[in-house]
């Protein structure tokens, strides 16, 4: 496998030959601009599949809760850590007249969620526990009036929900081989230090996803910051070590240019832990799904979890991008970056440098998003053109078409 990947970096093999079912033609612009297409995505993708909404570290104790606004499914989701340790999700809606039950983004509820409108109250398990002025209501069946549940499961500390009443697959089945390969990655340990940013972007959610699931733009777009982080003289555009598709999910494995010259702050920062842009892995203790080629040139894997989550995992840090559609031309972009617990203040400085670099690089990426959307919506052209290193972008469209044409659920 290593021999095959080294040939590919030199450019004499195309990944599209490995996955001929994706085709090589232009990709239509309609999915990026059409309201009708977006409504089909809502109904046939987002309401059908497992969606990654949070990490368990966000609600570590019984009674901890968070609220996830889920515009793409026209609801607000209340996610609660129960007294029995079970994490449950509900529509964040009081049964009485529909007021949003928990208006805050997060908190701890010692026992009862009480609606601030008339005071109906619910247990952490969603059961209706108190009806104010009960004698004035008519024929209520209290047992049937608890919060409306949403199916929730956790995988490696990630909380996923599924809007279907009875999902056709478990979360484990949905994640399949890519999930199995990542099992055992230290997501929990690295969850000790979590940085999080949100941005609302006037662009289709796939414009954002596309931007972060190919890296051959780095020498061009990131020419001032990290032009050669994955590339070097022998691999000018930073071609991947490997692409692999796992049904609806996919992975890009990237080399690191470990010989690049660090800046002054980077070179002091690396001595205290996280502060390198790319870190050479001396000895891999990572699960088999991370750098499965066991290529010594490897630095980071991008795992594309359908439909809207990218999970970049490296040796000592991981980050996720999640793209939440708000409309056909608006997206909430959520970036989460994780490090192990810093044990000293110098280590925490090192993490800060790494974090600032990632954020500034994301600001460079961000410059393209709204400009691209504006021009895609201009109608000037009907198609865009993808090259071999943009395999995951093409793969997304292929998988999405499967859901949209099959009426949802059937695509694998």
């Amino acid at each position, binding site marked *: 496998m290593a021999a095959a990947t080294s040939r590919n970096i030199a450019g004499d093999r195309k990944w599209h030959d490995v996955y001929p079912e994706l085709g090589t033609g232009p990709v239509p612009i309609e999915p990026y601009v059409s309201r009708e297409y977006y409504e089909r995505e809502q109904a046939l993708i987002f309401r059908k599949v497992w969606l990654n909404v949070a990490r368990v570290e966000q609600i570590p104790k019984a009674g901890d809760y968070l609220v996830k606004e889920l515009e793409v499914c026209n609801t607000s989701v209340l996610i609660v850590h129960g007294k029995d340790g079970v994490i449950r999700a509900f529509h964040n809606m009081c049964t009485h007249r529909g007021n949003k039950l928990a208006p805050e983004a997060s908190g701890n509820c010692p026992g009862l969620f009480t609606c601030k409108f008339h005071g109906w109250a619910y247990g952490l398990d969603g059961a209706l526990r108190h009806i104010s002025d009960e004698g004035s209501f008519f024929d209520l069946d209290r047992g049937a009036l608890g919060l409306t549940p949403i199916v929730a499961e956790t995988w490696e500390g990630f909380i996923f929900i599924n809007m279907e009443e009875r999902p056709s697959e478990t979360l484990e089945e949905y994640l399949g081989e890519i999930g199995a390969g990542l099992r055992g990655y230290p997501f929990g340990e690295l969850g000790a230090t979590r940085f999080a*940013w949100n941005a609302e972007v006037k662009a289709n959610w796939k414009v954002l996803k596309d931007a972060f699931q190919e890296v051959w733009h780095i020498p061009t777009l990131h020419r001032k910051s990290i032009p050669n982080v994955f590339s070097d003289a022998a691999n000018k555009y930073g071609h991947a070590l490997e692409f692999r598709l796992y049904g609806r999910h996919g992975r890009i494995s990237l080399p690191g240019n470990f010989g690049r010259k660090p800046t002054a702050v980077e070179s002091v920062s690396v001595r205290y832990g996280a502060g390198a842009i790319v870190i050479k892995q001396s000895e891999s203790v990572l699960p088999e799904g991370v750098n499965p080629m066991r290529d010594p040139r490897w630095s980071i894997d991008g795992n594309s979890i359908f439909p809207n989550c990218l999970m970049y995992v490296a040796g000592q840090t991981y980050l996720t991008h999640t793209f939440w559609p708000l409309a056909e031309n608006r997206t909430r972009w959520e970036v989460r970056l994780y490090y192990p617990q810093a044990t000293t203040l*110098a280590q925490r400085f090192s993490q800060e440098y790494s974090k600032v670099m990632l954020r500034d690089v994301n600001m460079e990426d961000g410059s393209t998003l709204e400009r691209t959307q504006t021009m895609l919506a201009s109608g000037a052209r009907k198609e865009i053109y993808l090259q071999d290193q943009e395999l995951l972008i093409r793969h997304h469209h292929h998988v999405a078409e499967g859901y949209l044409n099959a009426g949802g659920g059937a695509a694998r």
Partner: protein
Amino acid sequence: MGEHQLPEQFVGLEPFLDWALATEHERVARRQSAGMPAIRDFYGAMMARIEEILTFLEGYAIEKIPAAVNRLFLLTLSLAEVAPAVELFSQPSVIDGFDFKRFVPVHD
């Protein structure tokens, strides 16, 4: 005798104490508003002592930090914040980048 604001061996950095900011939001705002001469002065003063500073901070665990040590630590976070401005962009902001104000940290 007045208390020093920074650990004694680093009191020479006290002119830069307005960079000792607790949140990313504040550090970004200062990076955006201070102007490059002030950013370069701060960067230069910190980098002149950075080896000693980090050796010193390596001796402190994350919890229960004395106030003076915490101020020094916050200065290093601002150094991390301005590093790309000085080392990569030669201007406070990312060149032609997305607006920092719209990329909102929700971890502070």
